């Protein structure tokens, strides 16, 4: 038995996983601290959802080896929603050995229904050595998620690209979206109420495709706070904290910037 966990009240987990499920397959990595679900899109976008071990009512993992498996995320999300909105189901996950299917047992408390599922798993070939979090070490700003979502939705006027500028001089944080309809620009001061943390070493401007940012907007609506960090290479990291009744889970989103020839 490599990995075994039980969780109740996972509505928020289901919502988050459903919002990030843009690709078919995801890599599951049960670790000591919790379960990590990662999706990679064309090597330019990486989304990860962390479910900390304290969200589970029971969590046991084999210490001997690193466990990595690839499953169909869409199937997993559908199974999580098998009872729909009603009921308070209890989910038990088990993974016996490398190559064995991922077993899910869903128990509906009130109606005494048990659903037994097995999802086929696949091997994972690549192992990425570099840590994306370390690469985004230049600037960091923590902002209220609801404000950021609202601003991004208003900037989204069929926009193609979004330019992000973080600078130690005013205006501190600028978002600019350009598209066929025109341009939109918004500034947020570091002294604003929604900004909790503002660390800026040097001014950095980078451009990202708005489509990629749109993908993360759905999850951002569930989040309380967003930490935006950028690195010298232009890599953008968004870390979202999603809270539900004193339990927290995290989503990380890394996007590479558009190359602008000099």
């Amino acid at each position: 038995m490599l990995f075994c966990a039980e969780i109740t009240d996972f509505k928020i987990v289901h919502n988050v996983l459903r919002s990030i499920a843009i690709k078919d397959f995801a890599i599951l990595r049960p670790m000591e601290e919790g379960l990590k679900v990662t999706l990679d899109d064309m090597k330019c976008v990486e989304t990860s959802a962390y479910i900390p071990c304290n969200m589970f009512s029971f969590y046991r993992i084999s210490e001997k080896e690193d466990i990595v498996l690839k499953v169909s995320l869409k199937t997993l999300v559908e199974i999580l929603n098998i009872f729909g909105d009603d009921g308070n189901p209890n989910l038990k996950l088990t993974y016996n050995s490398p190559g064995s299917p991922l077993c899910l047992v869903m128990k509906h408390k009130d109606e005494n229904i048990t659903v037994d599922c097995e999802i086929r798993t696949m091997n994972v070939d690549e192992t990425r050595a570099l840590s994306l979090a370390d690469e985004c070490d230049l600037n960091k700003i923590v902002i209220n998620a609801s404000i950021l979502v609202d601003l991004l939705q208003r900037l989204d006027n069929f926009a193609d690209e979004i330019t992000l500028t973080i600078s130690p001089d005013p205006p501190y944080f600028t978002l600019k979206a350009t598209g066929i309809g025109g341009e939109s620009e918004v500034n947020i001061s570091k002294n604003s109420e929604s900004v909790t943390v503002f660390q800026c070493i040097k001014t950095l401007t980078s451009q990202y495709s708005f489509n990629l940012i749109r993908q993360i907007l759905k999850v951002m609506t569930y989040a309380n706070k967003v930490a935006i960090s950028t690195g010298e290479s232009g890599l953008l990291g968004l870390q979202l904290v999603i809270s539900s009744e004193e339990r927290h889970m995290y989503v990380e989103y890394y996007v590479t910037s558009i190359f602008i020839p000099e």
Partner: protein
Amino acid sequence: MDGIIPGANVKVLARAINALAKIGDDLFIEAKKEMLTLTTLNLRKTICVRYHLLNSFFSSYEIDENELTQQSRDISCKIHMKTVLPLLKGGSSREKDFLKLEYENNSDVIIFKMKFKCDDILMKHTLRLMDTESLTVEIKPDAGCNNILASSSFFSQLLTMFSNTDDEITLEVSKEKVAARNYIVGAPVRSKSVRSQVNLNASEFSIFQISCETSINFALRPFRTAIQFAESFNLNIGINFDVGGKPLAVILKNPTFEVNFIIATLNPYSDLQSSMATTSIPTKVSNPKNDDPNITVEDQEALLNVNWSEDFDMSEPTSDKADERSKRSGFQEVVKNKNTEAKVAGKRCKDFSLPVDNLPMEVDHEDMDVLPPSPESPRAKKAKLVFGRCFEPTFSETYLGQVLAPNSDSE
């Protein structure tokens, strides 16, 4: 032109643009000395909606007097509804302190600046405009001889009697009462549709002045949009109309703004043959710029002289003068406008009205074996002109000189 709209009125502007977006795809913004007018027309030019925002609507309204003295009395620009709608869409989730509009005459862009109450966040949108055109609507909203006025809740209650699938409403108006129907008496009955009739007395209206009894039929959709807008601000709805066939105006008045919905109408009992397309509202869209450096004078003349009816079968027996005028003005646009966005080019083609009836084929019963060939389509004729060279023999001596190899194709 600079205008600052205070927070409370930004909601009005947002709802106004939402209502305008339901009718047309392009928004005309005209800034006059005493008001700002937002106008849109629907595709077939049978509905014209105008929002007049008076000076008092703005906390500050500045317009450069010098720019007004030119041929038109206003500064105007045209913008895609799709460009401006997302800015003001959605509920008032974030309270706004103000919205500022900036436009310089003959500029390519219009600037919307919005300031949010929380956090002092300022958002600036620079929106690209379409080709500059000015619009003259040749209808006065209070030209009709009949007037009725009632509250918006009265009209929205009236609307609940009709279903959402109803397209048209017919009012049979007499001096003492009015009957509202979603069908035409005597017309063939469509199965599966509920026919509703609501009888209203003159006393139920605040104002009911009828000089000329008539039956008037018009589209329900713009009427619904007008009533929804009026209800959100608790405005009284006034309807001014003449006889069936002349345009009807829905007028909403408020101390700071005025709204006119001008809808083309029919008299269902005398105009059964004609369709709504022939009763369009006479409007004129013209481009103030006369010279287009990209098209030479000869090309301009050639474009004017091309007989477009060769391509399109314009065999409609009843074509209204207004319809022809709008078609012709559409062609002037083609000549005079600068050819920039492909989108605008696509829209020009929509001025044409497609034939309603296909000419029936006559079959000769005596010679059933000999089938007449299908009539040559006008397109084929034109294709032969354009691709004429392809129909000639493959080689022509006069062009190239000596024959290197004889024709190998057998014709």
